């Protein structure tokens, strides 16, 4: 078998594996559901993810040790990951091939030549690592914005799968929804369509992971090169060059993605994959100037305090940034979250959403709970998000820790925030309508939402007694709506303050419940009032865990009458509300 065919099989294999892992990131026990599939494997292989978290946290979280394998193989073989494994690279490879296959060899050679701007990706890498590497100010991990593995994970999980699932309802019962997915769509589409302009546009010009490989493969033991200096100079080797690395001349090793098309296309078998350096000479260093490097690094370092001027990590923190259960304190969280969207994918209720920039630039695509979307708030007995988080920005907690049971009793339950009742919108509070759906759905025992009973006289609710018995009151007024007060929520109160439940009514008669009796039957011409019994909800702030199920269920469906915001969250003391948590 030819080596390019082997490479194609490898690309298809890893792409299919990647998509499969995205599909099986569904909670459940079937073979196509989560079970034990290593759904984070591609993320773990990604050394940019490992390096980024090393810079921000000075540790290598154990599952990320996989990246060491990638680094070692790259040092030995070169950028095999880009050409053979990377699923995002494979998409670009394929689309670039489709879009340009009808061009003449001369046009293709022109298309795949080396371009100076290919150095931009190194500058991107330096900026992103600069932001991560300066802990004396504050580090922030933003590699996930452009790192191809998190980018593709995000695009497939939050964009392509939900759209496919709209028709199939395979991975969900009622569809999956992600706020702001349009931006993910726009970026994904642009990256794919740019291949029609220049093949592997993203890989050549933008990809910070490719840039990282370009830096570390300079000592690669095996490399593409010419096995003799002289050749017919037909340049056909550059016709299908995926990296734009000029194999006809002095090959740029840091750009070569090991597609092997040059070796395939060389009629004279001069191009080889070999341990010796190319006899036509080679360029191992990335094509960036010292000035470019310094300016990029400085930009990255200065970007962090520039973003910080918004004080989103201080007193100006955005109350709707409600993090999933197990998320660590905000500063450390932003040092670890790579915006891959795995937590948003696995969340069975779809409540974890990609964040927007209202919470600050760094908040973009980080996990935020939006209780108005999805099938429920944060499910009481669920800890799935922490189990899949590849960097432990959300810790893998147990239900016992979430609920504050056993050894966690002293720490108490994990609170995501606190529910607040909007008394101007709540039906019992503002409209004299019974409701308390929030109280009913509160999953905590004892409930964090409790009620206080009150009786409000309804509008135009005073009536004059014509005749009364212990069981019925006939009124002078004859305009009562039949059985309007028979719902079990209405009461009749006499002047003396005796209150009895109404069980039925006609246009001029009120029938009272047998459960109570009048001590004295109301006299003719005395007044009675019809009252509605209301249970007004209150929050017990010590019990509330901020799960948001109440907010999700609140029937005031536009701006909810009960809303969770992040005050009182337990992951740090910065936002605590109670004197004692």
């Amino acid at each position: 078998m030819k080596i390019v065919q082997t490479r194609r099989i490898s690309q298809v294999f890893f792409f299919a594996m990647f998509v499969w892992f995205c599909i099986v990131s569904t909670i459940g026990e079937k073979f196509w559901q989560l079970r034990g599939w290593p759904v984070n494997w591609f993320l773990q292989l990604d050394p940019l993810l490992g390096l980024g978290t090393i810079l921000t946290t000075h540790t290598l979280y154990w599952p990320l040790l996989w990246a060491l394998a990638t680094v070692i193989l790259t040092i030995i073989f070169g950028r095999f990951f880009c050409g053979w494994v990377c699923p995002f690279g494979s998409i670009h490879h394929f689309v670039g091939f489709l879009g340009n296959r009808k061009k003449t060899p001369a046009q293709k050679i022109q298309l795949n030549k080396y371009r100076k701007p290919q150095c931009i990706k190194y500058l991107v890498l330096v900026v992103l690592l600069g932001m991560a590497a300066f802990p004396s100010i504050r580090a922030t991990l933003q590699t996930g914005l452009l790192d191809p593995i998190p980018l593709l994970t995000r695009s497939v999980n939050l964009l392509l799968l939900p759209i496919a699932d709209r028709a199939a309802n395979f991975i969900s019962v009622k569809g999956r929804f992600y706020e702001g997915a349009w931006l993910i769509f726009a970026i994904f589409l642009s990256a794919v369509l740019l291949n029609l302009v220049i093949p592997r546009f993203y890989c050549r010009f933008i990809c910070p992971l490719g840039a990282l490989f370009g830096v570390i493969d300079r000592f690669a033991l095996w490399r593409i090169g010419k096995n003799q200096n002289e050749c017919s100079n037909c340049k056909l080797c550059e016709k299908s060059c995926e990296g734009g690395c000029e194999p006809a001349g002095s090959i740029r090793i840091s750009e070569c993605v090991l597609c092997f098309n040059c070796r395939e296309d060389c009629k004279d078998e001069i191009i080889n994959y070999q341990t010796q350096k190319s006899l036509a000479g080679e360029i191992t260093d990335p094509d960036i100037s010292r000035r470019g490097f310094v300016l990029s690094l400085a930009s990255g370092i200065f970007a962090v305090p520039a973003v910080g001027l918004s004080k989103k990590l201080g007193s100006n923190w955005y109350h709707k940034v409600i993090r999933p259960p197990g998320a660590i304190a905000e500063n450390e969280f932003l040092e670890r979250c790579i915006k891959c969207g795995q937590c948003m994918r696995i969340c069975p209720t779809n409540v974890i959403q990609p964040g927007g920039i209202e919470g600050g630039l760094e908040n973009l695509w980080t996990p935020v709970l939006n209780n108005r979307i999805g099938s429920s708030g944060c499910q009481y007995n669920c800890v799935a998000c922490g189990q899949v988080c590849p960097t432990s920005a959300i810790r893998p907690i147990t239900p016992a820790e979430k609920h504050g049971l056993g050894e966690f009793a002293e720490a108490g339950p994990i609170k995501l925030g606190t529910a607040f009742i909007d008394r101007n919108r709540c039906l019992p509070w503002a409209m004299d309508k019974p409701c308390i759906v929030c109280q009913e759905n509160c999953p905590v025992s004892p409930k964090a939402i409790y009620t206080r009973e009150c009786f409000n006289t309804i509008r135009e609710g005073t009536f004059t007694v014509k005749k009364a018995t212990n069981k019925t009151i006939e009124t002078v007024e004859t305009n009562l709506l039949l059985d309007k007060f028979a719902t079990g929520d209405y009461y009749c109160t006499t002047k003396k303050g005796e209150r009895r439940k109404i069980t039925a009514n006609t246009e001029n008669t009120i029938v009272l419940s047998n459960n109570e009796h009048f001590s004295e039957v109301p006299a003719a011409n005395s007044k009675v009032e019809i009252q509605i019994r209301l249970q007004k909800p209150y929050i017990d702030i010590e019990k509330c865990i901020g799960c948001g199920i109440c907010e999700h269920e609140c029937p005031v469906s536009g701006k909810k009458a009960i809303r969770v915001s992040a005050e009182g969250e337990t992951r740090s003391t910065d936002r605590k509300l109670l004197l004692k948590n």
Partner: protein
Amino acid sequence: MNQEKDENLTRRKFLARAAKAGLSIAAAAAVSLSLYDDKGPGASVKTEGQVKLSDFSIPYIDGQTISIVRGADRKKTVNKAIELLGGIGRFVKKDDIVVIKPNVAFASPPMLGATARPELVGEVARLCYKAGAKKVYVADNPINDPASCFTLSGIGKASSAAGAKVVLPKNHLFKNTTLAGGKLIRNWPIFYGPFETADKVIGIAPVKDHHRSVASMTMKNFYGLLGGRRNIFHQDINTIIAELSMMVKPTLVILDGTEVMMTNGPTGGSVSDLRRANTLIASTDCVAADSYGCGLLHLKVSDLPYLARAQKFGAGTTDYQSLKPKFATVI
């Protein structure tokens, strides 16, 4: 591409071109006129395509309407309770399609008692197959995430183990219905799909405290058939529960009071919310079953206004004694 030079324009070419132009004009005019709408969009809500649930009830047999069995083992008590009403053969005939509607409202483990017990659902499904049922479906539209509810409550697994098929509330399974004489259920979506082809319906519900409606039992269990923004019905909870008892005419309901959720309902959340009452009720009359069941919560029938309302609507009787209930104890 279609380059023609003027000097080459012949009569034939001109006529052909004129014919094409004429056809294009005719096509444009035909499309415009055929789609011509002189009214514009109306303000009215669509009311066509509504469905009505069938009546799944079976003929009344005096003295075999309600049975109350004491015992701790649900499998034994449910078998006995059904036997006292005439055996499963009275309810399920050969080749019947049966829908079991358990309470699967919350993503909560069975031990907390917020949902129907999986062993009870499994046993009833097994009995249906034993009586010759062609297919048994287990369906509910839970409050929490549906898939999680069926998984965590154990009902999904117990159903499949008994050979029953779980039907999750996918959007296309909902159809609108209007209850004749109803005030609230008007052009409202219900989880109709599984009931469309069903011959029999069996409701299974635990006895639970419920702050708004006082108690949640077999009648409240059918709230799980409602779709849409059903939470707004909490403004008039007694009317909606009474209307549900008119809308759904089940073959049989099973009220599980083996462990009763006394406090913090309907979600519970702690085993300390439960009280062991070791009672299981089977009935063809859900009003009667719930009227007995409220005693397990130490309540009177008059504490639950929806019972009297349902009786008034003719859905059943609150005077379960008049039905000559059969009692038994199994150990």
